[in-house]
């Protein structure tokens, strides 16, 4: 009897835990969606800001986020995939592998603001890029590198060993096997990882704080070396700068909704693809 009671209470507690988690996370999404939908419209997405950030749209910030995200992924994708191929396909002495694996793990744990400091000291100051799209892309690219490596590694490891053996048995060289057999088979998995990392990059604020972002641009950025508006930074700036807190908060709700929708949609798509893909291998 007592045993049964203990079990019921315990399970009730666990139910409470997941309830709490879902309540808080759900209410964040609910609040931002309700308030955000009041302001988001076609004009809000396609117009430039007007009247000292109190009216108009946020198109430059959306475009800026797009530039930064695409640039960062273009930088880290080749590096990350190459690193993953080395780790899974060319397994040499385990000492080297251990050092690389350790540095990937530790790089993944570095706080995002520290990446910002690094970008400021190296890309902005030392390389002389200034506060620019280029400096922001490179900083964000380094930030997502560990994520792209581990996703690619997971995808490559999931390719059955028999694929490699079959290719080598037909007389293909090691590189030919990687290029024509292993890589195509792993491609969907790698792409999933890339999509997930896009979601991460789009939402990052701290790394671009001193390397790329600006509160206000007249129009759209015209070169790799211009400052850029970005959605996450724009939310921060709207809440902490400017002289019309009421109107700015409304616009910030709109930006938060767009950002949230963007990031959640991207990661949902990636996770759905992965789920499907994992099943395909299991069967």
């Amino acid at each position: 009897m007592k045993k049964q009671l203990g079990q019921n209470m315990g399970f009730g507690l666990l139910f409470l835990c997941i309830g709490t988690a879902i309540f808080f996370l759900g209410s964040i999404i609910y609040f931002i969606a309700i308030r955000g939908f009041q302001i988001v419209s076609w004009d809000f997405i396609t117009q430039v800001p007007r009247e000292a950030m109190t009216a108009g749209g946020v198109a430059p910030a959306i475009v800026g986020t797009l530039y930064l995200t695409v640039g960062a992924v273009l930088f880290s994708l080749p590096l990350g995939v190459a690193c993953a191929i080395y780790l899974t396909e060319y397994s040499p002495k385990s000492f080297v592998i251990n050092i690389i694996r350790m540095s990937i793990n530790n790089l993944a744990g570095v706080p995002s603001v520290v990446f910002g400091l690094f970008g400021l000291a190296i890309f902005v100051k030392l390389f002389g890029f200034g506060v620019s799209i280029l400096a922001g892309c490179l900083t964000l690219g380094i930030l997502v590198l560990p994520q792209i490596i581990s996703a690619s590694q997971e995808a490559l490891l999931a390719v059955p060993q028999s694929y490699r053996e079959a290719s080598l048995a037909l007389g293909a060289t090691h590189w030919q096997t990687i290029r024509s057999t292993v890589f195509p088979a792993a491609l969907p998995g790698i792409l999933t990882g890339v999509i997930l990392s896009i979601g991460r990059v789009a939402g990052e604020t701290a790394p671009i704080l001193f390397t790329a972002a600006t509160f206000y641009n007249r129009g759209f950025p015209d070169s790799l070396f211009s400052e850029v508006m970005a959605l996450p930074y724009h939310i921060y700036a709207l809440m902490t700068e400017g002289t019309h807190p009421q109107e700015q908060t409304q616009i910030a709700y709109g930006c938060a909704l767009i950002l949230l929708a963007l990031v959640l949609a991207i990661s949902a798509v990636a996770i759905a693809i992965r789920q499907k893909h994992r099943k395909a291998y299991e069967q």
Partner: protein
Amino acid sequence: MYRIRERIYKGLFTLLAFASLIFLVGITLTLFIEGLPVFKEVGLFDFVFGKSWYPTYEPPDFGILPLILGSLWVTAGAVLFCVPVGVGSALFINELAGKRLKAVLKPIIEVLAGIPSIVYGFFGMVVIAPFIQRLLNLPVGLTAFTGSLMLGIMATPTVCSISEDALSFVPRSFREASLAVGANRWQTLTRVVFPASASGISTSIILGMSRAVGETMTVLMVTGGAAVIPHTLFQPVRPMTSTIAAEMGEAVMGSTHYHSLFAIGLILFVITLIFNVIAELISRRFRKKLGLGR
């Protein structure tokens, strides 16, 4: 001909594989080079244990104890929230949720882990802070507690997701053996499954803590930003990360202030590095214990 090409490709991949190492070393060197002048000018002891942070006063004070304590309080509060809720949710998903519910909950938690920190900061600022201010009748709603709560909510999906992975690694036979000797499901869960995955779960807790210490935008927006040594959870604090983010814009390049912000970055970097190494060691032991190899 083939052999040369094979060698070239292998060399190329070897080179590129070292990129992460190069970046990690680059970050470490940058922080050391830009941060060390402070230890010379202010002194390591006075910098780390100095009780006041007035970088723009004349004469300035560069003591980061209030900032370290700010980070510590906020992180501790976040852990008190995210560990029970995150681990409890993981246990629920692993033990109580049916196959279909599990197939829905796991990806949802994973998607939620991707909500950008700026969104938590914004939500904390416009919804939670005014609510807490009214509820507890405080002069301001932007306090260490608000920061803890937001960070705790934010870290919950991470803790839950990694803990659930650890739980699902526990072999079925453990569970079956326990049920076979007459334990009920709750006893099996708390005395067999949970202890077997305890080190895996502690990895998730340490990674969650590491994330909370290093989190910037959320604490920047909701902790109020007062650089004083906190006495209760219900007063504004200024954690290390938000100090860097808030002051880098106004710090003159090459000044002691500028260097001190890099030195704070260095200390943060070292703290998270220690967390990650501990997590790595524990998870390696865990995998060995359950015979999972690497």
